[in-house]
């Protein structure tokens, strides 16, 4: 089978995720919604993957399953050698706690905590975290650590969210439409932060977007349509975020 989503890795030890035949069916009232219809996918250490696809193509469902937030109807997902589809609720919590960093479209910061404290929410429970200050400097917010979310712009809030996601030194960074609520100028700053984290820390990053332009900064671009992978493209040359046409 020639499936570019599961192409031979340079070294199989570098496979972070190995997904096989994942199917997800939602029961919406009396209607069954097939969100994923048998997806096979491998993700490698340090790569930046962009998931592209229209609404309802299943990309968010796929991301949620990889992040241990949702269960599969059928198939298996391995994180290294751990089968996430067999994990208990408690094991999934632990998996998210120590290995996964999330960035959401609407930031989901805790409004009652400052930028630094929002990051500390994660570092307090992580195994080998960086200092909150350090994480915020990495996203260019070293000066604003004592600001509350209400005192930050959308782009700044999203960068706090990124700092929060990376501060635990996660193995994977899962971003669902991180620039979805931002204008292009702010979006570029956020993407630069993500690109820098990926490059400097080698964190495997999966990024969902509607915006095909963003695909230019990926190592690999995976297109989803109707619950299936419709196309996988490998970028020979990655574009820098500021060169992306929005």
């Amino acid at each position, binding site marked *: 089978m020639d499936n570019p989503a599961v192409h031979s890795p340079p070294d199989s030890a570098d496979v972070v995720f190995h997904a096989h035949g994942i199917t997800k069916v939602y029961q919406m009232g009396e209607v069954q919604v097939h969100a994923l219809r048998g997806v096979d996918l491998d993700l490698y250490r340090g790569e930046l993957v962009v998931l592209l696809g229209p609404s309802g193509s299943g990309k*968010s469902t796929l991301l*949620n399953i990889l*992040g241990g*937030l*949702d269960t599969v109807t059928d198939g298996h997902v391995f994180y290294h050698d751990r089968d996430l589809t067999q994990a208990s609720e*408690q094991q999934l*919590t*632990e*998996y*998210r*706690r*120590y290995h*996964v960093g*999330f960035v*959401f*479209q*609407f930031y*989901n*910061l*805790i*409004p*009652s*905590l400052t930028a630094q*404290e929002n990051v*500390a*929410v*994660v570092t*307090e*429970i992580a195994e080998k975290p960086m200092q909150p200050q350090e994480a915020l400097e990495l996203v260019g917010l070293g000066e604003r650590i004592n600001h*509350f*979310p*209400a*005192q930050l712009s959308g782009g700044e*809030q999203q960068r706090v969210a990124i700092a*929060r996601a990376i501060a635990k030194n996660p193995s994977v960074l899962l971003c*669902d439409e991180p620039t979805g*609520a931002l204008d292009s100028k702010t979006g570029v700053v956020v993407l630069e932060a993500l690109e820098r984290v990926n490059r400097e820390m080698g964190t495997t990053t999966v990024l969902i977007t509607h915006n095909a332009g963003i695909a230019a900064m990926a190592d690999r671009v995976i297109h989803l349509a109707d619950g299936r992978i419709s196309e996988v493209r490998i970028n020979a040359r990655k574009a820098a975020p500021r060169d992306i046409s929005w």
Partner: protein
Amino acid sequence: MRLQAIAIGLVIVSGVGIFVMSLSTLDSLFNTRETYYREHHFAHIFASLKRAPVSIARRIQEIPGIEKVQARVVATITIDVEGFPEPVSGHLLSLPAQSPGLLNQLYLRTGRLLEPDRDDEVLVSETFANAHGLTPGSKLRATINGRRKTLNIVGIALSPEYIYEIAPGAMFPDHKRYGVLWMAQIPLAAAYDMEGAFNDVSITITKGANEKDVIDRLDELLTPYGGRGAYARHDQFSNRFLSEELKQQQTIATVFPVIFFGVAAFLLNVVISRLIGLEREQIAILKAFGYSNLQVGLHYLKLVLIIVLFGVMGGVLVGAWMGRSLSNIYMDYYRFPFLIYVLQPYVILSAAAISAGVAVLGTMHALRAAAKMPPAQGMLPELPAVYHATLVERLGLQRWLSQPTRMILRHIERHSLKSLISVIGIALACGIMMVGRFQEGAINYMVEVQYGMSQREDLSITFVEPASGRAVYSLASIPGVQHVESYRAVSARLRFAHREYRTAVQGVNPGGDLQRLLDTRLQLIDLPEAGVILTDYLAELLNIKVGDPLIIEVLEGNRPTVQVPVVGLVKQYLGVSAYMQRRALNRLLDEGDVISGAYLAVDEQYQNQVYAELKDIPRIANIIIQRVAIKMFYETLAETILFFTFISTLLGATIAFGVVYNSMRIALSERNRELASMRVLGYTRGEVAYILLGEMALMTLLAVPLGLLIGEGLCAYLAFRFDTDLYRVPLVLHPDVYAFAASVVIGSALLSGYMIWRNLKHLDMVAVLKTKE
């Protein structure tokens, strides 16, 4: 939305329900009493005397302002109930032939009225009949004017004069050992050589007549005939007891619903604000379609008012049903012959007005916030709320606090008003529960001081006529009687400055073991040879201090009026009295060694023999068995208190649970997104629950001490309101009262915490990633 509406409805139903129940019950009790008094022509003024010819009754009729005079014969008798060894005393009242307008008319429950000339027929009071299982056809034996007689019961009756049926001198009703009987006028008068005479009179006065003047004229007229001082309806024993009890009910019936309704109103406001808050997006859409703020406002107002309407209707129905049941319980307790349940329109209207007012206020408050913003913004995610570091953190404690703890503190501080109201709500619940338990402890204490330390006799007896002091020796010679102490008691009017009070002056023997006087610190007082000692409450009533001269106007015998200095005060929770040395009182009355009765200590093993001996002494008018009376009192009271404790515990627990659970439910729905985000970040359910439950725990911990303080205040208020000359409720709060209230509140908080913990299981992590709010 449907669930929210039901929740709002239920809050209104319970608030309105309690409100309607309490007020309608109270109205019904007052109304029933009024109707009973009116329809049965309960007299306005009463007087008893030694003996006067009927012509005097006609002269009484001539006193201006008098409407109707009814003379009768009243006798004290001892009764023998078959199979009941203890002495039973009673009052035998003459009953004129039934005619319209007869005063103190009886309500005949079963049987028939008396034949006018039968000397073996009696009616008995319902309480006494029930206590002994007597019915028409039953027989009694009684000693009437020294002669034993068998009496046939022909009917069971209730009288407005004896709603509260208590033996003279007793503090508690004892329906087994005291009863009221009625006999036809002619044979009773014959038995006491009272043909053409009377020894008791009841009077009604015309509207606008001066009661005090009538009483003075009456006293003037009756004094030569051994009149013992006329008194008005408000001093009539049964009526006074009933009035005091109803006054207490009134206090309880207003304090409780106000608290409960207040909390319900708060919940209503919070839930409605939240409901409108959730409708934010819809409001924006409606406005985008061109609806004005007013139209949108009216739409939601109508919605809320419909919910309120249903809530109020439900509450009135539930309240009326509960009120009717509660009134029936009270009717049994107070021995009314019938119950007139009234639900006055003002009760319903004020319940509806308060509910609607609170609901509209909550709606307006939330709508104003929603209407202020432009439609487009309404459809965007809500901006993060503004927070800042709390005081605790600024004090430098910050580094000791984890992020979730900081979230708790900052949330409480940011919503300080809401948090404060929640804390007050929980505290009120705690306070209510203390009130329920407080009564029990207070009454125990009251009885312990009065009967354990002060009046320690087993029996107290009263002679028909004052007797020689030597009578003590014959009493002491009865086998089983361990100790006898005599006393002299006269009824008197006590005066100081412009204040006066009618009570008995008690002459007791100094150094007595059965009757002991305690000072305000409960230390024994030695009765000085001269001077008078007053109950502390009586001193307050007369506004008299130790050292002041008290004027004693004796209402018996040759009726001397003397001035005696007050030499001390005694602590007494039941009744009010003035005390002197018996010999000093004898001297004051210008009599020899005379006693009115005696206190007896009896060996329990011989008590039945002692009773039998005492029953055979004709000059004993009345025997009160103290211990049995107390036991009876506890039995009656236990039921009431148990009911009251149950109600207040239920109320308190409901309020505590309602406040805690609702606050947490609302916090959960408001912070749903925040908490789900934390779950996504790898926080466990327990760690996330800590943020919600920790906040609630902190508020509960703040509320409990505050609640205990509020409870103390409420108890003190009730104790103060309950203070009457009949009894004073001491403010005695044992540690178990505090412990109980605190545990129920904490228990309710734990229960709602557990329910929230279960709710957290369904926190949708996936949804928060995609949705705005």
